[in-house]
């Protein structure tokens, strides 16, 4: 199957392959799999405890070229974003950027799952981040009712 140039670029020259210390409180780890094909992906983030900005992202993928490209791209995208913004990335953004054909959509789904799983894992270690997000929702609700 013909891969797009962007896929090939990430595949032959993947960014941010590697491992972060799973046990660190500032590190979130997401391990996900695609049952369609049996491929697995691990994505890890290191989050700044004050700003909640993702300072570093690493991945390791055992899967097809599209899955490797999707996870490589995902780590590039989320670095420098705060966790709430990183959660807004959806698999369709990845599909568009990499021009993935329909049969490869599940590979991009895997990357989105990995981002979410990593952030959830980090949040579990940081209950106050939940509270902050909930607080901003409350504030938002107040704004809405007073408007």
């Amino acid at each position, binding site marked *: 199957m013909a891969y797009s140039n962007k896929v090939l670029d990430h595949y032959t020259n993947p960014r941010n392959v590697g491992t972060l210390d799973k046990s660190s409180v500032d590190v979130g780890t997401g*391990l996900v*799999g695609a*049952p*369609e094909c*049996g*491929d*697995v992906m691990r994505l890890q983030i290191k989050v700044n405890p004050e700003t909640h900005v993702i300072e570093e992202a690493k991945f*390791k993928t055992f899967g097809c070229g599209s899955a490797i490209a999707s996870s490589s791209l995902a780590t590039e995208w989320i670095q420098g974003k705060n966790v709430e913004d990183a*959660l807004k990335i959806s698999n369709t953004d990845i599909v568009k950027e990499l021009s993935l054909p329909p049969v490869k959509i599940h590979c991009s*789904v895997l990357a989105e799952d990995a981002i979410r799983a990593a952030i959830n894992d980090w949040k579990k270690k940081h209950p106050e981040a939940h509270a902050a997000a909930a607080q901003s929702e409350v504030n938002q609700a107040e704004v809405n009712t007073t408007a």
Partner: protein
Amino acid sequence: MLCWSCRQPASGHFCPSCGKIQPAQATDYFSFFSLPRKLNIDLPSLEREFYRLSRKLHPDLFARGSAQEQEWSTEKTSQLNDAYRTLKDPIARTGYLLELEGVKLEEQSRSATDAARQTGAEKKQVVPPDLLEEVFELNMQLEEMRMNKQVGEDDPNIVRDLQQAQQHFEQKLNELTTELQNDWNEWDALIPAGSTEPQDQQARIRVRDKMVDLLNRRSYIRNLVRDVNEALS
């Protein structure tokens, strides 16, 4: 249904009264072979039936028939090939049955992701997390072994490690096959004599979902077996 030619009651691929080929219909693979939706299939008799029908439906035999009969024979021949290819393979057969039972194996993971995005909740992984952990770990080890092998081609230790891994994965695959066999038996027992589908709807869904879970788990192990064989070859 009446035969289009002699107007006698007809069912199956040929009219029992006049022997003419009957119209091609959209049908599932089990019905094509007049089988109930059972997962234990007697392969030798499936094969015999396949060859018998291939001969009888062969388009060459209809070269002098009507245009419609020619079309039906071509259509039925292609259905026959698809049906046989799917039913003779135990995993393809199981996957196909699950599809007939309304499971979209290809889409389950994606819809779970969509749900997680909307609710912000954690996505439910379709396989248990500890299996993922294990598979990931094994992949890491396998990668290391493969890299070592590239460096020190004939190192007997590496080859031994790989062979052990191969045995381990194959054993796991065998365990899953045994488990699948049990599910098959359970499923088949739900289909009463004379009926083509399970009648107990609750049990039907329960056994179906067990098999979905099993096929999901199996795909990871199958990849490991494939990769380790590749590394050893």
